Structures are given as C-alpha cells and as structure tokens.
C-alpha cells in the first residue's frame, strides 16, 4: 500500500512543482479532486495555483504533509463494487505483509568513519603478528646485521659448470674447441666419440684379443695387490726380518751388478747412500730425538714392546750410519774391530775415514798417537767388542760384568743401552787422563808442602765458587773408576772426597808447571796428605767462623743492653714520644668545633682603640659549639684516629640509585663484578663484552623482511617433510631476497 502511495505522491509532487504546463495541471487536479470526492467522505483542501511566479513560497514547496498523500484504501474504495475487488485486495494485503524496507543510508562522513575504524582495527590486529619478533629483537643480547645472511656455501663443481658461460674471447675459443672435440666425456654415453670410432675400427678378433690381454693384466694386478695385503698383515717378526734381509741382499746384489754395468749410476747411488748416512748422523731421529722414541724410552721400563722398538730404532740407525763402501780390509787395518756405532767423539768419527781419506789432520795424527791415548784405545776396543756382543742380545751379561768389577758408581744406574755405556767409558778414559795431568800439576808445585786444612781461610774465596766445586767432585768420582782407586772407594766417605778436591783446587792456580817423572810418587803423597778425618775438618771450620764474628756474642743480657744503648744513642736528639703527644693534642684541638663569637666591638657601647667589649656582651653573643661525642682514640695513648671524614672519594661515588636498579645491593654487586680479561677467562670475557649490535663493514642492512621472517618461524614450528629450499632457509642463511619470495609463493600454491 505504501508503495502505491509513494508512487502517487511523487506524481502529485511533480505536478505541483511543474510550471510549464499549467492547463494540464489544472485538469489533473480536478481529476484528483473528483476521485477523492467519489467516496464523499473528505473534501480536498488543496490550494489551486493558477499562475507561476518567480517567488515561490517555501511553504508551497513542501511535499511532506500527509494530507497530500493518497492512501491505497482511497483508491480501492472506487473499485469496491467491481468483480475482481476481493481478489485484488487479497493480493495487496499479501504484498504489504511481505514487504520490508531498507534503512535510510548513513551520511557520507559517518559512513567513512565506520569504514576507517574497521580497516584500522583490522590492520592493528594484523600488526600484532610482529609483537613477538620485535620483543625478541629488542631483548636480544646481540643482533648481527644484516639479519639475513647471504649464501656463503661453496659451489660444487657441477654448479659452477652449470652456471658457467664463456665470456672472454679465449674462453669462447676454448669452449668452441671443446664442443667439437671427439674426446669430450659425456655423462649420458659411456664412451666418447673417438672411442666409439676406434671401437668401430677394430675387428672382432682384435677386440677379443685386446680384451683378454687387459683381463690378464688386471688379474695379475689384483693378485699382486692381494698378496701384498696378506703379507702386510703377517705379524711374525721373523718373517719380516727374513723379508728385510732378503731385500737387503737383493739390494746389495743389484748394487754390485750396477757397479759392473753402469759405474756412473753406481756412483750416484753411492753418493745418495752417503748423503743418507750423513743425514742420519746429523739427526737424532733414531737415537732418542724423535717424539716417538722419547715416548718409547719412557715406556721402555715397563713395556717389552717399547724396549724392542727402541732397540729396533737404534739398530736401524746403526745400519744407516754404517759405512759400507770403505773396504773392510782397510778398516780392519786401521784399528781392530773399529765401529762407528753411535760413537759421538769427533776423533772417533773421523779416525776410520782418516786412514783412507785425504784428511791431512788425521793422517798426521794417526802415527803420533802417544801413550796416554793407549788407554782410550783399549776402552774403544772394549766398546766395540761389547757392540759385537750386543748384536746377539746379551746386554744383561754385560751389565753383570760391569757390576761385578764395581769400578763405576755410575754403573748403578747403568742403562740397557750399550751405546751410552761406550760413551761413558770413553769419557771416563778422558777423565782419567785429565785427572792425571791435574794431579801431576798439583803435586809438582806443592813440592812436599803439607796440604793443611787450617789454610781454609785462604781457601774460602775459592770455595765460594760452588758450581766449580761440584763439577770437580764429579770428575773425581769418575777418576775413581780406575783400578788405582779401587780400595779407596770402599773405605772413604764422601766428605773426604770433597776435601780432596778443595785442596787440589786451591793448589791449582798457584802452580802451572808439571813434572811427569814425579807423577807416580806424588800421587802417593797426595793420598797420604788427603786422608783427613772429615769430622775434624768440619769442627775446624766452625771455629774459624766463630773467631771471625765480633765479640757481641758474649752474653744475651749484655747484648740487649747494648742494643738499647745504641738505639737511645741513635735517637738522642729526637723526643719522639713528646712530639707524638703534642701532635695528638693538636689534632684534638683542630677537630673540636669552635665557639662562634658574634660580638661587635663598639656596638651599643663606646668604641675605639684599646676598648674591650664588655663581658656581658661577649657572653650574650657567643654561640657555644655543641659537645662532640668522645674521640675514638681517647683511651689509646699511642694512636691518633682522625675523626675528619675523607670526602675526596665522594665525588667519584654514585649518590642516587640509578634507574633500572631497585636496590643498592643489586647495583653494588653489578659494579663489583669485574668484566676485564684479568679476572675472567677468555671465553667469559668475550661473552661479557660482546656488543649489542654487530654490523658488517660496507654491507647494506635491509629492513626486516616479512616473508622471510615468518617463513622462518613457521618452518621452525612446523614438523614433517620439507622442501629442500625450506630446510636451507631454516638455517637462516642461503637465501636471497627474491628467492625467498619465490619460495613463499610456491608454498602457497602447494597449499591451494
């Protein structure tokens, strides 16, 4: 009904406002009036307008008055008597019931406001996604920029090849050549083009033959390999020794053959061997210099294997340093059984070669070997014989021998190694020689003078050279290995030896000459002189010391008195105690708060020179200082405790508790905890001092990337199968800006 009303009203309105066709309007109005008056109930009160005027009253423009509207029932009234009236009425009722009108649209500004609010809220909500990330970044102990690291993985050759494009003319040329080369290896086919061609070229027979041949060679090779492997696994030492010996024999044979066939090559081989020998002699590789050897030596005491390996090493060294190419007859002539095994003496090394070589020094010295070296010779011979024995592993026997003779103190700690022994013995021999010389010197110069211990005052400066003395005692010990001193070693005690040395040492600087002929006699003399009771010597020394000390030591009481006297004498002029009391008093005075006198002379009184303010006034204007608490050092006579507070540190101290801290203890503990290297281990120091932000020099820092960041998070939380690219990006490296986007898109597609 309303709709129909609207239709009609709008029509009426149009007619009202329309002013071009007045005649029409008029007839129309009349028609409406007649329609309304049909039911006879109401009369139209519409204004009739006959003429258009420019000034139209506002009231006449209004269309909203309900009176103007035509209701549906007004129209229906006219149809009341027609046949379809009931039907029509029903339809209209239905229409009215079903109809729902829209609300009036909101005004534009209001509409905009709502839209903006909705969008803003949506955006704000979306942005909360960033909260955890922002929080994490703000609290991170260290942030390293740029956040996304470039891919630093090394490219594989395949990758390089795939992306390689020839650029320079040379590269282009090479590429062109390679492209057309028949020998180019292709992955798809097993054989190259050239190979295929050659295959085609070969006849079937030939190919078979060739194949058989190749097969044979391959089989042989594999046999050889397996054999070598098997042999290598064999643990038997004997087997290996035999193998080694065989090899050596073979080598020797080859060498002799070579000597005959090709002297030049032989000479070269010899030279090489010589060089190797020299190198071996230079290095300690097989003689305890190497780390392995050192370890083995440590273990040798407990471990048989280690001992054996040491032995082997030494053996090896001996073999290497052996001189093969000097003819045996020569060396035998030189000195019987001369052996170079590990002997370190320079003379010893050069001696054998000296016979055959052109060393003038040795050539000269060989014949003029004089008597004292005879002993050395003997010992050398001994050593060489020992050496020979050693090859048959008879060390123990030898040790027994050594101990049995009881010659050497050093033999107590005798080592298994006979090399050292020989060394020792040679040294000993030298020592003996030296000793003899020294003794002879000493004796000749003394000329029967008694060596008296009472002379120790003169000796003392020399004795002070402690180190020398020790060395000499050692040499003495070694001398004792000679048979001459055999008896002595059993009887005498150590201090005596020391004394002996002292006496000799004292004698040495005085006498430079020696007389050989007297040597033996004097030796005996010395023995006689030296035999002094060590205890006596000790007492003597103390006596001398006592005599040297001044007389203060007479009595303890006297001593104290004397001390007091000297102190009082020394401080005769200073009155320390009085000074101190005065000082203390002064400090007390100074620290006492002063009274404040506010009297003004001449104020309310006569003024002028020489006039004292009246007592009454002084009393009135004097402000007395408040009494202080008792001083801390009041009862301590000998102490001044300053009451003044030291403010010098205050300017360095924090007066207020700084912001993030909530209590003083927290702050103090933070300040106390040191961060320097001096107090913290390197790792902790690095951890403490690591900067909050690290940037890379010359690297652009891009803004944080939404896609990359959230993909990373998603992957971290996600479980299950992942794409290759995704696993890469999980590590936080290996992806570029564009790549990340692409991957993201790919993922989305997959999801769809």
């Amino acid at each position, binding site marked *: 009904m309303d709709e129909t009303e609207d239709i009609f009203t709008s029509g009426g309105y149009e007619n009202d406002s329309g002013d071009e066709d007045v005649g029409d309007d008029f007839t129309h109005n009349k028609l409406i009036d007649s329609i309304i008056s049909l039911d006879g109930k109401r009369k139209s009160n519409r204004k009739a307008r006959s003429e258009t005027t420019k000034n139209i009253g506002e009231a006449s423009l209004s269309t909203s008055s309900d009176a103007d509207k035509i209701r549906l029932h007004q129209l229906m009234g006219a149809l009341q008597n027609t046949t379809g009236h009931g039907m029509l009425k029903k339809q209209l009722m239905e229409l009215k019931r079903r109809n729902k009108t829209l609300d009036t649209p909101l005004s534009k500004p209001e509409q905009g406001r709502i839209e*903006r609010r909705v969008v*803003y809220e949506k955006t*704000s909500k979306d942005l909360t996604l960033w909260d955890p990330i922002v929080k994490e970044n703000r609290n991170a102990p260290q942030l390293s*920029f740029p956040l996304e690291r470039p891919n630093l993985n090394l490219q594989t050759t395949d990758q390089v090849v795939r992306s390689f494009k020839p650029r320079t003319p040379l590269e282009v040329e090479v590429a062109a050549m390679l492209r057309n080369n028949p020998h180019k290896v292709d992955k798809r086919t097993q054989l190259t083009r050239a190979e295929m061609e050659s295959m085609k070229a070969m006849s079937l027979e030939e190919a078979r033959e060739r194949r058989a041949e190749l097969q044979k060679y391959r089989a042989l090779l594999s046999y050889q390999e397996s054999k070598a492997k098997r042999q290598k696994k064999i643990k038997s030492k004997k087997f290996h020794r035999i193998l080694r010996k065989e090899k050596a024999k073979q080598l020797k044979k080859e060498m002799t053959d070579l000597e005959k066939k090709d002297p030049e090559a032989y000479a070269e081989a010899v030279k090489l061997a010589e060089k190797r020998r020299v190198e071996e002699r230079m290095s300690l590789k097989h003689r305890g210099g190497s780390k392995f050897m050192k370890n083995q030596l440590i273990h040798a005491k407990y471990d048989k294997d280690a001992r054996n390996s040491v032995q082997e090493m030494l053996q090896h060294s001996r073999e290497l340093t052996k001189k093969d190419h000097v003819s045996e007859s020569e060396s035998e002539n030189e000195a019987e059984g001369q052996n170079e095994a590990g002997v370190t003496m320079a003379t010893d090394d050069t001696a054998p070669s000296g016979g055959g070589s052109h060393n003038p020094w040795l050539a000269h010295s060989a014949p003029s070997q004089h008597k004292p070296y005879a002993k050395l010779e003997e010992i050398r011979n001994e050593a060489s014989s020992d050496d020979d024995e050693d090859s048959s592993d008879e060390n123990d026997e030898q040790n027994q021998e050594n101990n049995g003779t009881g010659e050497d103190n050093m033999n107590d700690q005798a080592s298994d190694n006979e090399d050292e022994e020989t060394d020792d013995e040679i040294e000993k021999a030298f020592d003996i020689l030296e000793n003899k010389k020294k003794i002879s010197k000493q004796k000749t110069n003394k000329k029967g003078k008694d060596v008296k211990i009472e002379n120790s005052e003169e000796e003392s400066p020399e004795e002070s050279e402690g180190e020398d003395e020790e060395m000499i005692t050692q040499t003495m010990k070694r001398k004792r290995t000679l048979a001459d001193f055999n008896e002595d070693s059993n009887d005498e005690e150590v201090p005596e030896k020391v004394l002996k040395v002292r006496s000799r040492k004292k004698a040495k600087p005085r006498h430079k000459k020696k007389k050989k002929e007297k040597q033996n006699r004097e030796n005996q003399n010395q023995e006689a002189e030296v035999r002094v009771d060590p205890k006596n010597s000790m007492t003597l020394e103390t006596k001398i010391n006592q005599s040297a000390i001044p007389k203060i030591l007479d009595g303890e009481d006297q001593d104290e008195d004397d001390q007091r006297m000297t102190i009082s004498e020394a401080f005769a002029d200073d009155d320390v105690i009085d000074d101190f009391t005065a000082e203390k008093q002064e400090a007390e005075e100074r620290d006492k708060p002063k009274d404040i006198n506010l009297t003004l002379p001449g104020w309310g009184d006569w003024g002028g020179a020489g006039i004292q303010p009246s007592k009454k006034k002084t009393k009135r204007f004097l402000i007395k200082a408040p009494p202080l608490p008792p001083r801390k050092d009041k009862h301590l006579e000998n102490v001044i405790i300053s009451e003044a507070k030291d403010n010098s540190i205050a300017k360095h101290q924090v007066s207020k508790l700084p912001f993030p801290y909530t209590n003083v203890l927290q702050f103090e503990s933070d*300040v*106390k905890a040191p*961060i320097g290297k001096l107090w913290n281990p390197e790792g902790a120091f690095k951890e403490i001092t690591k900067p909050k932000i690290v940037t890379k020099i010359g690297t652009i820092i891009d803004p944080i990337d939404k896609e990359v960041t959230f993909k990373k998070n998603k992957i971290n939380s996600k479980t299950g199968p992942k794409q290759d690219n995704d696993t890469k990006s999980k590590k936080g490296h290996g992806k570029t800006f564009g790549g990340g986007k692409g991957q993201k898109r790919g993922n989305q597609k997959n999801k769809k």
Partner: protein
Amino acid sequence: MKVKLLCRNPDEYIRETKKDIHKVPRNYDPALHPFEAAREYTKALNASKLDRVFAKPFLGSLNGHRDGIHCMSSHPSSLSTILSGACDGEIRQWDLAKRTCTRTINAHEGFVRGLTVTPSAESFYSCGDDKIIKQWRMTPENPSEKEEPTHTIIGKTIYEGISHHWRDNVFATCGQQVDIWNVDRAEPVRTFTWGVDSISHIKYNHIETHLLAATASDRSIMLYDMRGSNPLRKVILKLRSNAIAWNPMEAFIFTVANEDYNLYTFDMRNLKEPLNLHMDHVSAVLDVDYSPTGKEFVSGSYDKSIRIFPIEKGRSREVYHAKRMQRVSCVKWSRDNKYILSGSDETNIRIWKANASEKLGVLKPRERAAFNEVTKLKEKFVHHPKVRRIIKHRHVPGMIYSAKKEHAIIKESRKRKEHNRRVHSKPGAVPFVAEKKKHVVAELE
C-alpha cells in the same frame, strides 16, 4: 739415582705458528688481582676521556649545489651513491667515496620537493613545485647530452612529497591529496582525501609495505592503507609535524619530527599518546631518519644542529654542528649504519660518522676486543658522576646553549606555576598530567 725434574708440555707454551700469539697461562685467583672495581673504574674513566678526545665526527662535505638542499634520497644497492634535490630545481648525484658530483640535472622549475629511488635502482622519481613528476634513469644513456626524463606526469596540483613502495612498482605522492601511482599509468590508481588542503610529507612502511604515513599542515599525522579506499586514522598534535620516518625493524613504530622542537615516537596501534617523546632540539625539527638497525634515529633541525637519539631514550646521545652549517633541511642515515648525511640551507651536504669516536676501517680482532671491553666498561660505570659528566658533555654553539638555558627557565616557570595552582586550589582540581599525554590533541577515526 733418579733425578726428578719439573717438566712442562711444550704444547702449552709453544706457538703453532710464528704469527700466533703467545699463550700466557693465567691465574684467576682473585687474591692476586685486587681492587678490581677501582681499576675498572679508572679504565672506564680514561676510556670515556679518550672517547671525547677521538670524537671527530665530521668527515667532509659535498658542495656543488647553488641553492639550499631540500631533499635527499639514498641508493638501494650502492652505498656510495646519493641523490639530492635543491631549492632551485636541480638534482645532483654524488659519489660519496670520492666526494664528487657525478651528475647534474636541471629537473624542475622551483623547488625539488621530493626524490625517491625505485627498489630495482634503475630509475628515480622527482617531483617539484612545477606540478610535474619526472622519472629519470639512474645511469644516463648519453652522459654528454642534456638529460631528459624517461617519463613525465603533469598534475593539477603541487606535489609536496613522494615515496616509492619498497617492493612493487608503485609510488605515492602527497600534496592536496595523497595519490597512489602505478608506473604504467598516467592517472593515479587511487586517491585519498580527508579534509585537509596540504599534506607535506609521506612515507611508505618498509615492512608492511602497503602502509603509508603522512603529515599534514592541519597538525595531523595520517595513516593510509594502500589497498583500501579510505585512510586509516588521523592523530592531531599540538603543532605541525614536518617529517615522518618508519622504523625499518619494527613494523608499527614511526617517529615524527615536530615544530614544537620535539620528536614523537608512536606505535601506530595506539595513537592516543606517543610511546616516547624525544627532546633536546631548541628549534623546529625539520627531518628525521632511522638507522637501518632501527635502534636509533637522526634528526635535523632549524637550530642548525643534528641530533642522534636512541629510540628508547628521551634525550639525544649526540649533537653534531658545524660552524658554517645552516638550517638542516634533510638528514639521511647511510644504509650500512656507519654514516649520517645532512643537507642544509647553505648548499652543502655534510658527511658525519654515526659514532663520533669510532675507528673507521677494518679492526684487528684484538683491537675490536679492546673496544668492546671499554664500551662495556663505560656502560657499566655510566652512573658514576665523573664518567657520566665526561660522556654527556658536549660543546654546543652559543645560540643553542643560550636557547637551551632559556627553555629550561621557561619550563621551570611553567612547572612552578602549575605547582602553585595545585597548591592553591581544591585538591584534585589541577591533576597531574604525564608529559607524554600533553602533546596529542585528538585521535580522529
């Protein structure tokens, strides 16, 4: 006799190579290293003094422009390239490493109002007072010839600012309205208006790339979403904002440079009050730019100084000024976080170090460790008066010094007045208002 020896493992004291450092065994017994706090305090004090001794932030200037510099733009992939636009319509391209001008373009009549480089770095856009947007190649095709823009858009109104999207080929201009442009079209794709006549500055968000923020002459800051047809929100401050900068690491944080000498950092989800206000300038702040790490920003001011603020601090950590530097109209933080560029009215672009006393160039590991240690020490003892005094002390020009004093007096007197009012009125009649809340006038939906 067995002789026992003290022995050491050579591995512990022998260097592996000649260039290796000597291993020094250390005893960390605290009894052997007494007075740790006192010693570290001294070290921190000395370090802070040395810091001031070595603080030489000014690196050099780029001169060549014939009028005041109005805008700058950095290159997205080359650290040594920047662009600057001057008030006479000239655009120059600079090589920072050589400190030379590599290119000069007479681009516009009147001011060059805005410059922005595309993310691919192939071209850049400029807009000016002549109502024209021009697109230029980054590397000119023919350097000898007079340069012509590759693309020109003639508009109806003056464009006051321009900003390029961080990914796509879309850019936004502002002026009477905010326009979103697509590269391929001559007409804007979208236009936003919200009852203001002049929008002076616009910036795209780095992270949520569809978001835009703009400042307008009606003292408002406006937020837009490029995807929608309506603006998002508007917040009105007491005075006009001159520039805006988004935090490149935190999507919802932006900072505005205001005429009331302050800078305000907002969380765009809560515009009722700023997160933080940063004060120290003594005149209007004209431009602001974030460091690429998002931890600090730099601001240039009408008081002829540049200041660096940490985002969470209310006061600046550093002030840069030069004798002949005039009003600073634009500042840029270099994208490697090392340098700051400032363009000012007296036609010069100045290059500064972001960290005044930092040693430039490659640091040796031990050097770096030492720097890290003293930095940490300074941080630890910063509350101690002597250390703080040295760290905080800056020499400023007389103008700034006296202005600062004056402002302090003004502030003090206002405070006193408020206090007096509070004391002499009914309890609760004069409420305490936090400083942060005083500056936002309204938030409009």
